């Protein structure tokens, strides 16, 4: 397993955001983590990348404990946060160079990959403009390039489709496919269930910090008594949402 999460708990004052989660992700696997707003997905992501400290439990990345050996663990992770950290006064290309320095990677390799991605996302014209002039989608793409720097063994994508146009989402799926083929694991969280359905090998559904279901999309559907149902139906059913008795809202 490239990522192993064991009995992880996290509490914010009165709220227990993550309640003893345990699961793992194998190399070359794409894992979709689904949950409603406030279910604990982002908290979990932040604990994996070392932005938050779990109250209990362990998280191991590439056999390194995130708490005991954070540098080695983080060196194995590429992280795209939901709201990316980008410096408005830096150009997109400078940001990529900075990430290369921060991660101790060979700049020429990182830039070669970034050049291909700038080309694929049709951002060559903007790569030397400051990030302050970028649209939200452009920022997301540059942040994604930063997360892919060095092709790390584990890539965490937190709501990667936000602000992306349909073609970019298609490219993102292609990138995830390539990562899978290269043996990198991908942990992706998204509210776009169709996207997860198309690209994830396994999914985990969490609600209020607890893991409700784990397995391939068809396994999860079968386990919830709705074999063959689409992911949206399975998900809403699992988190206890009744979609049939909603009154007129407007």
């Amino acid at each position: 397993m490239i990522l192993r999460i064991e009995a992880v708990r996290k509490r914010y004052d009165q709220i227990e955001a993550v309640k003893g989660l345990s699961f793992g992700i194998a190399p070359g696997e794409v894992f979709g983590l689904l949950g409603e707003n406030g279910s604990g997905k982002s908290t979990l992501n932040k604990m994996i990348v070392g932005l938050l400290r779990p109250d209990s439990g362990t998280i191991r990345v590439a056999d390194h404990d995130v708490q005991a050996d954070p540098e080695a663990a983080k060196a194995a992770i590429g992280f795209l946060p939901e709201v990316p950290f980008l410096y408005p006064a830096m150009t997109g290309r400078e940001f990529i160079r900075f990430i290369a320095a921060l991660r101790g990677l060979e700049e020429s390799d990182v830039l070669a990959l970034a050049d291909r991605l700038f080309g694929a996302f049709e951002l060559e014209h903007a790569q030397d403009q400051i990030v302050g002039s970028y649209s939200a989608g452009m920022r997301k793409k540059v942040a994604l390039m930063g997360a892919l720097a060095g092709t790390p063994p584990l890539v965490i994508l937190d709501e990667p489709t936000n602000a992306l146009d349909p073609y970019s989402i298609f490219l993102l799926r292609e990138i995830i496919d390539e990562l899978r083929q290269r043996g990198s694991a991908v942990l992706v969280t998204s509210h776009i269930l169709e996207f997860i359905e198309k690209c994830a090998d396994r999914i985990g559904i969490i609600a209020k910090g607890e893991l409700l279901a784990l397995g391939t999309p068809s396994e999860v559907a079968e386990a919830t008594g709705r074999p063959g149902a689409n992911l949206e139906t399975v998900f809403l059913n699992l988190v206890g949402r009744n979609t049939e008795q909603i009154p007129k809202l407007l």
Partner: protein
Amino acid sequence: MWSRVGLVLRFKLRVALRTYLNPANLFLGLISVAGLWVLTRRLVGAAIESELGLEALPPLWFTGLWIVTTAAHLPIAGRLLFRAPECELLLSQPLAPRHFLLERAAELSFPHLLWWLASAFFLYAWIDLGELDASRLVLGLLAGALFALFCAGYQLTGGLIAGHFRSRLGRWLAAATITSLPALPLARMPDDFAAAARLLESWAFWPSTLASRLTSDQGIVGAGGLLAMVGGLALFSDVLFHRWHRKDFSRALTRSQTKRTLLWPTAASLLAALPRTARGLVLRDLTLFLRGAYPNAGLAIVGLGVVHFLFSAAVVDPKDTRLAMVMTQFFAVFEIVIVTWVFAFDWLKFRSEWLGLEQSSPLAPKAQLTASLVTAIVPCLVTAATLGALALLVRPDLGKSWLQLLISLAVLGVVIPILGVQAAWAGFRERSIPEETAFGMTGGFTGMILVLATWLPLWIGLVGAFFFTPAVVRQLRRSLDCIRRLEVTW
């Protein structure tokens, strides 16, 4: 028209009241005001009864607190003028442009303040050359400035009174201030205040004093003042009434889309000797600094500050204990702090806002902390060294007391780690008004006043010892004496 603007302003006032005027803040505010009143009496008393030296530092500290908080608003006002996050919200509402502009004018009243103060300075200089009683006119202008200040008052008072007073640093600084109070003499009311106010007048209008020294021609000063007022008004109306027009956003956007390919590679090749990660961090800071709006505004202040610092160091008599002279000396030191603050604060802010990027990278906490410390401290040291060298150039006979040296080292030992910790773990929000003006932050910066004020002789001594031979110093002194004699004849 007024009802629409009134609605917007009423709403904003409500938000401000909700933000700042909760019972806890009110209580702290009352304590703060009472404390500041006592502090004022003590410090004014100390300033009048003591000689210039270490004893004068508390008044400098107190004045520094107020001036730093006021000065902190100037770059903020500039930023809000163009980039306030709420502008997009307001512009997207069915609000007529004139309503929007009126709202902005009220919200961003600090440009008023700048304009009024500039006008007051020049008018004072003009009248000072004649024999008119300028006090009423000047007071009127100042009242206008204060009114402008009051319009945005909730920003100032909110940050100043409530703000970070509840923070740990704020509490420690407050405790230190309160425990040091009994050591100071109490001002005699109201005579000392009247004396202080009279003396303060000449300090407060320092630029106009300089203007009248530069030229004794009332016509030139008057014309200059008039020009400054017209220019200020034109600038003000241009900024508020034209640049907000939507078509100017497209111009700004075009500027931001300029290709920038020179800075990073050039700096990277110059710093090639550094390790890869360290080089990346330095390049990041350098890029953000050189392209940031704050540092550019700061550089203008720095230019003015250095000129004033040199002027003050050259002409003020250290034995003159009048409050005006103390204030002038203070102002010179204050500018050192402003210089440091403008640089250091920005860098602290840059680091804190995007700390997540570093925290999620494979960078050891020790390396992050070291980078933060270096980023925070290097500008302070470079600034102090540069100004120390400049002070030596204009005033080689400044004191080199061992007591000052020891105290300065002790204070330095306390404040630098605080700065470092702030740099590493500060948690500023996007809208930074309360943080920049709050007690904790302001206290930190006024702590720097203490450091730098006491530290200056040490720097002068060190820089003098290392970089100037006695012969050079003697030659410089002779040259400067000539300049000073020339200045006196003005």
